[in-house]
């Protein structure tokens, strides 16, 4: 069975929606002493997670004299910042959805009965590495592959089909999306594997026994059962692509205009020094992710209404 790779599903973990569900039964309760034991943990998360995140959020509403202002936030709705959000969201959505779809197909192909075991082990370890691959090394690997003088470009050109003549450009939004898939697919494979393990053989057989063809099983049973995990995975992949920075930067020099690159430019660059605008941009990212979560929760709840 699914012994060696019982990976914990991050995305499909039901914790997220649960956590956000208001606890109706709680009422008023004494604060028991048992809480004291969690003080170190909460102290740590407050110090190193909430304070930094909070300080960024506050900084977004300050000007260079630390006076309160909405100017930075207002600026986000103008060019080129609003375009950066649009591009970031588009790239993240495209790579999250495509990554989820193809990652699922690849993971299923590797995990299903009948595929040799070693393929699964090999794929999951590889995915662990590739999910961490990024930045200039990844960008260069792709330039060397599909850049104007890349290995594959050269092969194709020799075969009489020049990809650049047919509108392909590695240093474009499409190119960035193609490259992002290099870490999106592995992440999806890792995240979805336990959910695929959870698909029971009995369901497939029962469906088949009742007359369903392969696609009908997936349409009525497989995909609906996986849906909560899939939605969670899409959110995770979205966040993953949304925060990615170095890869797109080294590949496109800001011509593919995404938010983290702008933040980097404004906060640390040699050129533009406007930390409060950077903080406002970060605040905007936070808002986008929060909105994604808000869209995700009802979808998730609907998809998982049959679950415990």
């Amino acid at each position: 069975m699914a012994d060696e790779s019982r990976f914990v599903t991050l995305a499909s973990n039901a914790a997220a929606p649960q956590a956000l569900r208001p606890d109706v039964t709680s009422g008023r309760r004494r604060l028991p002493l048992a809480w004291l034991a969690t003080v170190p943990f909460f102290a740590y998360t407050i110090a190193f997670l909430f304070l930094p995140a909070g300080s960024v959020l506050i900084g977004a509403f300050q000007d260079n004299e630390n006076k309160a202002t909405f100017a930075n936030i207002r600026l986000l709705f103008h060019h080129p910042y609003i375009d950066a959000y649009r591009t970031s969201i588009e790239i993240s959505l495209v790579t999250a959805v495509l990554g989820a779809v193809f990652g699922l197909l690849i993971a299923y192909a590797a995990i299903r009965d009948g595929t040799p075991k070693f393929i699964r082990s090999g794929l999951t370890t590889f995915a662990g590495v590739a999910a961490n691959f990024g930045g200039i090394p990844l960008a260069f690997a792709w330039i060397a592959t599909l850049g104007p003088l890349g290995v594959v470009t050269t092969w194709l050109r020799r075969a009489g089909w020049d990809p650049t003549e047919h509108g392909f450009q590695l240093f474009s939004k499409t190119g960035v999306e193609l490259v992002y898939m290099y870490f999106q697919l592995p992440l999806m494979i890792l995240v979805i594997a336990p959910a695929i393990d959870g698909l029971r053989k009995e369901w497939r057989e029962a469906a088949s026994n009742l007359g369903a063809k392969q696609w009908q099983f997936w349409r009525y049973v497989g995909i609906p059962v996986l849906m909560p995990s899939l939605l969670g995975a899409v959110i995770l992949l979205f966040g993953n692509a949304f925060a990615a920075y170095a890869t797109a930067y080294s590949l496109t020099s800001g011509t593919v205009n995404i938010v983290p690159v702008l933040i980097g430019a404004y906060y640390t660059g040699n050129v533009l020094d406007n930390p409060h605008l950077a903080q406002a941009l970060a605040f905007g990212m936070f808002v986008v992710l929060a909105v994604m979560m808000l869209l995700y929760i009802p979808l998730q709840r609907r998809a998982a209404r049959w679950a415990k």
Partner: protein
Amino acid sequence: MAPSAYLWLGLAAIYFILPLYATLAFSLKKNVAGAPCCTLANYSWVIHNSDFWHTIKVSFVLAIETIVISLILFVPTIYWVHLKLPRLRPVIAFLALIPFVVPPIVMVVGLLRVFQGTPHWFYGEPWGFLAAAYVILAFPYMFFSLDAGFRAIDVHTLTEASQSLGASWPTTLVKVILPNIRAAALAGSFLALAIVMGEFTIANLAAFHTFPIFLQYVNESAGFPAGALTLLSFMITWAAMGSLLLVGRRRGGRGAMIAGTR
């Protein structure tokens, strides 16, 4: 086996291997005009580079430190939550998702702001500032790993059995609980290792010289050896992941195998 399964696996293999192949081809080139393949000189350059070993060491020690702090911080907390405060579990699970939605570039901006002016041993040393940040980055992976581990064992029975035999809380935790979640702790630890060995943004913006920084630096400045270094670092991470899988298999444990730093 269905041909479509092989088709997808084949396409995936092509997609994943080609860029590595292109990198490999470049890493074997000689730095001489028109020279044919091949040379291992670039690999030798990496292996004989003292910065390579130095930064590997820094990152590795940092990873160990991150792991130790994470375990000390999270194991007792998650244990306690499973034992006494189950209602807190979803709250912590939600907190564990936050590092996913706060981009590292945002994190580091905030961390630098908040901790500026703190003593040098913390602010100025990777062992202080960076380790503190990495514990947060590792938090989701550690939490979901450990949480699965704790769910797989019967915390209450183990604790009650231990205490009925006269063990104190710390003894119970160290002697009874820890061995039972060893696999989960190891899985989380290797993930933390993978994160620390790969994290670039925070180390870069906070100005610390770790292995990923070296990797990036070589990629920008050293030309030929960069490909070699990229592949070597790929292998190193792969080895770490492989050991994670082995540990998981041997101990029958579960582990999250996701990490995300780019």
